[in-house]
């Protein structure tokens, strides 16, 4: 069985509210109960409330699989990059270091690399992965192309990422504003982006202080 072709996974960090429902639900998934595979981080809590969820992007040519010396990571026909196969994984952490999105996690108590597999048992059956099922902001969305087209008229899809010299295309799509001109996400460039405006700039401390 494979994930039906009509379904896709769409990520819109702009919508994220940092609620961590995805993290809490991820650890309820039957294949890795008690362990959340999704990452959810503040960008810089001291200066912003912005958070970003990170699922496996399911790269068309996955770096993790390319660097794996034990051939433990498989990308199935449907484009899903599977978690390491236990009999093969030698817990070398190459994939953890190499993944440009920082997705795989080394679980030292099992000596096994674990990563998001789009809740393969669920998505194969046409069910939503846990994170996308519960996400209350729509930052994580699993559905058909038609649904995305009708629900997100102001957004468009981007699936090219630049990490310095490396360009990656992915199965998971990023949603960006329709009127933006970018053709790919310049991830390294974004790290130097200027912070948001300060809405409290004009507010003085109370006179009594």
């Amino acid at each position, binding site marked *: 069985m494979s994930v039906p072709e009509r379904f896709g996974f769409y990520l819109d960090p702009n919508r994220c509210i940092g609620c961590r429902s995805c993290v809490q639900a991820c650890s*309820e998934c039957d294949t890795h109960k008690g362990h959340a595979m999704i990452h959810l981080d503040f960008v810089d809590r001291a200066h912003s409330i912005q958070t970003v969820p990170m699922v496996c992007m399911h790269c068309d040519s996955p770096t993790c699989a390319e660097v794996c010396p034990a051939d433990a990571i498989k990308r199935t026909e449907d484009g899903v990059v599977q978690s390491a196969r236990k009999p093969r994984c030698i817990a070398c952490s190459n994939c953890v270091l190499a993944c440009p999105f920082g997705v795989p996690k080394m679980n030292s108590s099992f000596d096994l690399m674990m990563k998001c597999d789009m809740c393969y048992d669920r998505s194969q059956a046409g069910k939503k992965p846990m994170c996308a099922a519960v996400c209350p902001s729509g930052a994580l969305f699993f559905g058909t192309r038609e649904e995305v087209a009708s*629900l997100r008229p102001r957004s468009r899809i981007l699936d090219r990422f630049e990490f310095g010299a490396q360009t990656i295309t992915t199965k998971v799509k990023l949603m960006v504003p329709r009127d933006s001109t970018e053709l790919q996400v310049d991830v390294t460039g974004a790290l130097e982006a200027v912070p948001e405006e300060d809405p409290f700039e004009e507010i003085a401390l109370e006179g009594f202080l």
Partner: protein
Amino acid sequence: MSQTPQTPLEIQDRFGPHLNYAVGARLATEVEPERLVATHCCFCGQQCGVHLKVRHNQVIGFEPREDFPFNRGMLCPKGVKRYLQGAHPDRIQTALQRDPDAPGGFRPLPYSEAIRRVASEFDRIQSTFGPDAIGVLSGASLTTEKTYLMGKFARVCLKTRHIDYNGRLCMVSAAAANKMAFGIDRAANPWSDIPGAEVVWVSGANVAECAPITTNYIWQARENGGKVVVVDPRLTPLARTADLYLPIKPGRDLLLFHGVLHLMIQHDWLDHDFIRQHTVGFEALAEHVRPWTPARTAEATGLPEKKIRQAAELWGTARSSFLLHARGIEHSTHGVQNCLGAINMVLASGRIGRPHCGYATITGQANGQGGREHGQKADQLPGGRDLANPEHRAHVAKVWGVAPESLPPPGVDCYEMMRRVETGQIKGLLSICFNPKVSLPDSTFVARMLDKLEFFAAIDFFVSETAQHADVILPGSLHEEDEGTVTQVEGRVIKINQALDPPGEARQDWRIIQDLAQALGRPHGMTFHSPREIFDELRQASAGGVADYSGITYEKIEAQNGVFWPCPAEDHPGTPRLFEEGSWNPVAKGAGPFYFPDGKARFQAALYTPPAEEVDRDYPLMLTSGRVISHFLSGTQTRRIGPLVDQYPEPRLELHPRLAEKLGIEDGEWVSVESRRGLATLRAQVVTTIRPDTVFVPYHWGDRRSINRVTHAAQDPISKIPEYKVCAVRVRRASTEEREAAEADTRSSMQIGATRAAGETALGSGRLGQGVRPS
């Protein structure tokens, strides 16, 4: 005398809070559930649908429930992990009686003996001091059936005027304002009207954390081309992505509404036809807001004039809109007036009673809506009827089979009840679903009052901070151990389905109440056999009232996935959207869509009064309090669920770096925040996302880190809601002693509970350190 028997640590060791994590069948991957129970979350007013996986009388996990139209599978972290409140090591499974020599200060008591003891104490107090000497505190997380029964129990069985509920801390300002302006208290629209609105205005509502599912509705409006305006002293997750964010000074919301209305009038952004046909009082209001020029509004609200003008233009020129507010404007000594100010803006625009044109308060508690309609409120009878109204009394007395004169007169709000403990008018107390020691303001006073009672009985499933003061604790039921209805944020009546049987000697709450009535020898009207029977009587009692449930049945709720009240007949589908043109209601009788005899809505010249406590030299900062997403209300449940505690382990005081620098405070440092009432010690979180003149602390904790030791018990004169959202404080580095005390409280609140199988008793088993905290 009701007094906490032992040191906090001894009680904590025995009764928690301990953190519960998934173990055993809850962690195993190959275990299949016996059945999936379609029900709802137990926490907030959104009432998300969820499937509980049940096996061996234990909930072992959840499955998204996509068929329920409100949340379509979505959940916040509380909804995901709520199942861990069951089979919890802290769960009380027998009645408990105070005993200073027993571990934790309580010893188990056979259930029937406990019931007899409570009844005889209540009887003794009432025969000595009169019926009003017993007070009843109830809650809005109970099913509507239970809230109805609590009201009936107080009025018919105990015959006391002293009953009130924790919705007093939550929905009452909006409820009073809605009644004054519309003649009815309910969200005017279903949430499905939000995505099509051109402007969504959110005032004083941290939607992302307190009503998470609403986020998707608002983002959908934006996706459809709408604009989002957020008014809040903190830059909340929603505010970050809003089109316009107004960082208002706490307690000044009404002035912004006045200022916007002033500009709407100046620019003639008004719906004159609507105002003429459907409202009264506009002229007087226009006069009232004339002084609120943008310059003056800016000065008073602490907002830039430019942003006020932008907001007014967005609101004024929109063709469709949805205004939402919540506790941010309601927790105020002029909370009712704040809500009226918001309603004025809506009525002047004429954008209500149509698709994509709406207004609502975001009700906080699970049954915040249903829980305020059917008679557990001090002045109220079922069906939204008034206890002071002779016709209303007659109707309900007839359903109850009692003489109208036998019903007591209206009582007082829950805080006033505490003051009546002080004056000796109330000597005995029964509480259920309410943790006033954590949730009421100026809580050291509340703790003293609990200690002053001659006799205090609490119905609870965990020994909450309040129950620690009880003489007898009766083991009640968790949400998943009973069935019944709840009315969620939109006014949709939904069905809670039972997944488990209560463990040990624990009982469904309605059975406990009826057992008490029986033991008191006053069983009249307290002999229901099921929640369904209670609901059927409630339908009759509400018939013909504003909150008319008479046409709602369990079957219809099931078939339609919820029924919006009013629903006056069995062939009536319910009323998702109020105030539609040409709609009929029992007050206007066809004269117009609003619930007054002339069918017209009321503009109210809402009166601004400053917060009860302004900053001064001694207390130069404003304190505002609120919630975080992974905890709920007083934390009785969520502080016992490991993954939710891990997400937000301890309360933090948020302050702006400019303020932190001035005070010499660093991120993560222990600070003490102090008011004229009291002091709390917690760690600082230095963030640029809050006004520099304001500090924020969430209120879910009960020990020396509890911010309600600091907050002010000043109340709105109409709704009696306390002013949680602003009072004057000072903040400094904590002393060594204060820090050590707070650190000790933090440590003791983080102990992991022993694991045990369902059904095993909590008493007498080893407790600590045996659980596994997953990585």
